[in-house]
């Protein structure tokens, strides 16, 4: 019994570590949806490009981890602002359908461009964190996992403070709430949108850098963003706390299935679990835990 319990805690703890990454990715999605009502299908590409860029800066140009990460984050922010300016702004006022399509177009464009620039090889990230696992209260975690948790917590706290207390954060909340009223109050919504895309891409870059530490770096990293869809659906599309809770919950559930059901049926279920959960949520509670119900008028 004692052994069963410690196994359970172990599975949950590594689930939380994975969940933190999902939460970070989901946060990026939710920020954009909240402010602009756009689901950015190109998010996974930004994650992948950040991971590859960080790797190349360290491996080919011999940057230290911190400088490489910093450069990556700045590049991602710039990319976000440019994307908003040249791809999304011409689409203002177009139907949701067209805007979704354009981010899909952007995603495959970025993916193939990354393929051309960085190549299709698998790279092993020179992780700066020590390899030895750490034992805390009977649970074994790698240093990377612990840093993921710490960084996610710090980022979430920063966002909370930013949105709650800063002038810019207030302006963003106002724009997300009602674009026209925000315009009337003298808020430059164009600048807000550019900022939101920049910030969202920064979260993607941070997630990408941490993913690089835990997985093999290649073009396939984009796939992780699709795995974060269930997290945002579970949390509700427009809710920042929802994204974090959703991410953690999906991470833990995925690991529980991997830890308990996969040995019985012979594997393969862990990867599909998030999507099965997604379907279940969509059928039972389409607006998630914290999402706002849309009331439509003809």
């Amino acid at each position, binding site marked *: 019994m004692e052994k069963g319990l410690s196994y359970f805690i172990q599975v949950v703890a590594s689930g939380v570590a994975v969940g933190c990454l999902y939460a970070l990715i989901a946060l990026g999605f939710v920020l954009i*949806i909240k402010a602009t009502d756009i*689901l950015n*299908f190109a998010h996974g590409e930004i994650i992948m490009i950040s991971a590859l860029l960080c790797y190349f800066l360290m491996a080919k140009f011999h940057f230290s981890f911190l400088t490489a990460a910093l450069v990556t984050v700045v590049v991602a922010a710039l990319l976000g602002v440019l994307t908003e300016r040249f*791809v999304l702004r*011409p*689409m203002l006022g*177009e139907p*949701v*359908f*067209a805007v*979704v*399509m*354009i981010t*899909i*177009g*952007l*995603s*495959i*464009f*970025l*993916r*193939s*461009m990354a*393929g*051309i620039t960085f190549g299709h090889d698998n790279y092993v990230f020179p992780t700066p964190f020590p390899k030895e696992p750490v034992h805390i209260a009977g649970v074994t975690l790698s240093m990377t996992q612990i840093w993921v948790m710490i960084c996610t917590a710090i980022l979430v706290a920063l966002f909370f403070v930013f949105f709650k207390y800063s002038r810019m954060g207030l302006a963003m909340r106002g724009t997300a709430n009602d674009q026209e009223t925000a315009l009337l109050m003298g808020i430059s919504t164009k600048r807000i949108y550019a900022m939101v895309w920049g910030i969202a891409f920064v979260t993607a870059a941070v997630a990408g850098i941490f993913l690089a530490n835990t997985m093999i770096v290649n073009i396939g990293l984009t796939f992780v963003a*699709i795995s974060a*869809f*269930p997290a945002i*659906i579970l949390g509700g*599309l427009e809710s920042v706390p929802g994204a974090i809770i959703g991410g953690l919950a999906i991470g833990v559930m995925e690991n529980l299935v991997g830890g308990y059901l996969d040995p019985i049926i012979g594997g*393969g279920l862990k*990867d*599909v679990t998030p*999507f*099965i959960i*997604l*379907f279940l949520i*969509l*059928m039972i509670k*389409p607006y998630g835990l914290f999402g706002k119900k849309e009331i*439509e008028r*003809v």
Partner: protein
Amino acid sequence: MAVRSKTFRESYYEDIKLFQTIWIRVWMVIFLVLLGTLPLWGNPYLVYLINLSSITVVAALGLNLLIGYTGQISLAHAAFIAIGAYTTAILSSKVGLPFWICLLASGGMSAAVGCALGIPCLRLKGLYLAMATMSFSVVVENVLITWDKLTGGVRGIHVAKVSVFGFRLDTDDKIFYFLLIITALVILGIKNLVRTRVGRAFIAIRDRDIAAEVIGVNITAYKVMAFTISSFVAGIAGGMYAYTMGHIHPEHFTVLLSIQYLAMIIVGGLGTILGSIFGAVFIVLVPEFIKAFSRFLAVLIPGLKGQYNEEWNIAAFGLLIIVFLIFEAEGLNGIWRRIKTSFKNWPYTY
């Protein structure tokens, strides 16, 4: 001499006629004769490209029915094509059934799965629907890889050749007519479908679903119907693909293929039959343009020789989606229509 006016129709029937004027009929006949004799005068590579185009046209029509006419975003089209292709492959090579049962079974299998996907997706639209269908596509891809007893897993699966009344259609030239006839049937079928009550209901749902419900369109039934018909057509396209290729593989049917089909209907023109055909042929030809262009560049700049690879095609698809959505939302069909009206109304074009 009678001057043709812009639109002058005396009855409702004239307005919904399949071929509006005598000239359209004449051009159609010329086009069909040219296409029908293609294997006699075209080179094998051209025949291969047209074969690929006709499969693509069928699948693109199915997707356009769902997205362009009914307004339901779907990123699962590749999954339905895959289900069709695998059904044909398994039935033809492991069971040995004749082609028409295989094709109908492919369509039926896809339609059943499409119907099953359509029902839980009824409450969803826009972003939610895109995410749900994309996840479905990922699940199907995983199943194809993991269930290797049935699908052959990552090694892929072999497909028996088609034989029609004892003739084995084992070359591109021979299978050409087979594909052409199915494509023509599907085009006619969908063209007829969209001008009936069902088609008008689809368009009403796309334009304003709640308003459509208020005037008595049964949204539930028509949405599920749109999903079912679209996946039926995708299944048939999958079967055609399996027969033409002879060997299929899970990697042919990733989400990327769904996005490629999206590119087709956006570039061609959403909610038009002609647009789906234009778009499908255009996207099939894009890699050829890029290859030709890169050869041309390699002549000018020797350093670029051999730099071409598949990535550039995909980049081009992405760029095409973005450019067409921003600058030409009506797609190639819109350009075509504008040219046509401008000739028709000459010299009073405006």
